[in-house]
């Protein structure tokens, strides 16, 4: 990226609509926050009018575009006792634009990729990633659950976005074209943009205060590992459902199921009681406190160690979704401040 000039332009609402039409014309599908019933979540759209950027965050993260709830890895139909192996046709995956994701979600892509392509590259994931273009929208609002800034991100951060838009008011967006993919996405649409004329997005961005010192978290976690009382206290309220993991943009636990001649990959959660149940019947993490510890350790200790990337982007979705108001920010603060 450093070889590139910073490319900043302006685009209006109507021009955006034309850009959408162009994408559709190119055979891409567009996923964007869309209101349905009482929730705003990523769904297929055709015009900017369908897009809802009002909420601070969508209920669910856009990770489904790369790592769907259920996906077929390959199939193995059998006939008269003979089994045939059918790989998935990766070329058939539809090029996709994810529009309207927040900088935190964009940053999460790196965490996901780090997991899926850690030791050996996951072909399906990589193919989906290659076909994906992200058009982020910077945050002009935040809420008490947001803490991206504590983790090195920010409401206007460009990491992970191919293009980042910032609502400048008056129906105008500041567009930063960040990557080659971004450039390709607006190829031939130059007339839709105007020059930025030195407009600065900073004033439009939300103020997300730094809540804790990240540097303290990893060593604290390691020191606290055996402090059972601490973890029990921290997780007393937790009921062990999978809501946090399933709304999280970086959680990547999955299960493999064979069904009707298809091998399926589907979401799983380390918060579930039987997640670590061994065939022998032994369960190394029988208690919810241990599973909660695992959640934090994985995101803030194991992943930085193994994949050199944090497993959390501070989007705050888990805290918003938790049925018993477990607020991850509070717990990270408690870890950072703990005196083992």
């Amino acid at each position, binding site marked *: 990226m450093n070889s590139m000039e910073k490319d900043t332009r302006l685009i209006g609402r109507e021009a955006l609509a034309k850009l959408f039409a162009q994408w559709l014309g190119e055979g891409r599908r567009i996923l964007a926050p869309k209101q349905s019933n009482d929730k705003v979540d990523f769904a297929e759209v055709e015009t900017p009018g369908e897009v809802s950027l009002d909420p601070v965050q969508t209920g669910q993260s856009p990770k489904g575009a790369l790592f769907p709830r*259920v996906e077929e890895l390959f199939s193995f139909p059998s006939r008269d006792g003979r089994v045939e192996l059918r790989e998935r046709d990766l070329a058939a995956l539809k090029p996709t634009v994810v529009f309207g994701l927040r900088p935190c979600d964009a940053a999460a892509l790196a965490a996901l990729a780090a997991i899926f392509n850690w030791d050996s590259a996951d072909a399906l994931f990589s193919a989906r990633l290659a076909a994906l273009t992200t058009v982020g929208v910077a945050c002009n609002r935040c809420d008490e659950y947001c803490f991206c800034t504590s983790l090195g991100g920010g409401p206007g951060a460009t990491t992970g976005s191919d293009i980042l838009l910032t609502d400048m008011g008056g129906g105008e967006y500041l567009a930063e074209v960040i990557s080659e993919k971004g450039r390709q996405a607006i190829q031939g649409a130059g007339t839709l943009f105007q020059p930025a004329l030195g407009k600065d997005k900073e004033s439009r961005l939300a103020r997300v205060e730094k809540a804790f010192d990240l540097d303290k978290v990893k060593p604290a976690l390691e020191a606290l590992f055996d402090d059972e009382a601490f973890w029990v206290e921290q997780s007393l309220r937790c009921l062990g459902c999978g809501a946090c993991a399933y709304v999280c943009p970086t959680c990547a636990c999955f299960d493999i199921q064979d069904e009707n001649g298809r091998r399926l990959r589907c979401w799983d959660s380390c918060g579930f009681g039987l997640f670590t149940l061994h065939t022998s019947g032994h369960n190394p993490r029988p208690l919810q406190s241990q599973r909660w510890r695992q959640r934090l350790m994985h995101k803030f200790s194991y992943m930085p160690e193994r994949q050199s990337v944090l497993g959390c982007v501070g989007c705050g979705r888990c805290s918003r979704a938790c049925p*018993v108001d477990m607020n991850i920010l509070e717990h990270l603060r408690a870890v950072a401040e703990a005196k083992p």
Partner: protein
Amino acid sequence: MQALRSKARELLATKTVQVIIGYASGGGGRARAVFVREAAKADALVFDDSCQQNLAVYFSKPEVRKLGKAALVATPAALRAILQLAAENQIAEGELLALAVGGDDVVPLATFAAIEAHVAARDGDWSAAEKEELQKYEAMGLEERRRFWEEQFSRCLKCYACRAACPLCYCTRCTVECNQPQWIPVPAHDLGNLEWNVMRAMHLAGRCVDCGDCGRACPVNIPLHLLNRRLIREVFTVFGSRSGRSAKGDNALSTFKPNDPEDFIQ
């Protein structure tokens, strides 16, 4: 609220109980469960309209049981849950103290009999709004209902928040986790989601105490409590019984009467 706090202080000071399971203020105007073990911290307790979670769910959590004898700040639904858990032999007499709350008052209920009496005295029909909500869906045509639920279930993530939030879903291995062979599909596809949700509703039939926590817990807002509520009405109108009213006796579906209706059987 003051009555609640002073009662809590007293119970902890006298070591009548080791922990008060109650509500404290949480994020975003929500209330959250709190486990008060020191009299000095009793002022964290609150009780207002935001306190809706059925705290009886924590009885099946080993870490919570380890804290010792508990006093539970109990909404009417939580009281029913305690009775139902007692009827299913999950709680023994004397294992807990219920602090029935309502308005500014707090009523300590030490025995199942006391809880039964308290529940019976305040038992009533569903509110007009609750009835209306159910009727809205029943008034739909069959096909319209089918489409409605198909859309709802298509959003289900199988995060099992509904199960986790339910005080009566205390099995240590749920049917969905029985995987030799896999009985309910694990993936959250449409068929798996339908089967899971039917299974959950059926296994709560005759046991659900109507707290509504399943629906509240759902991160994708599926009105799951409606399924339970429909079956509560079925069980009540056909078999005449309501769960969570007595600490003894069988669930509607673990007993029978020889003359139960069978007009639908050929």
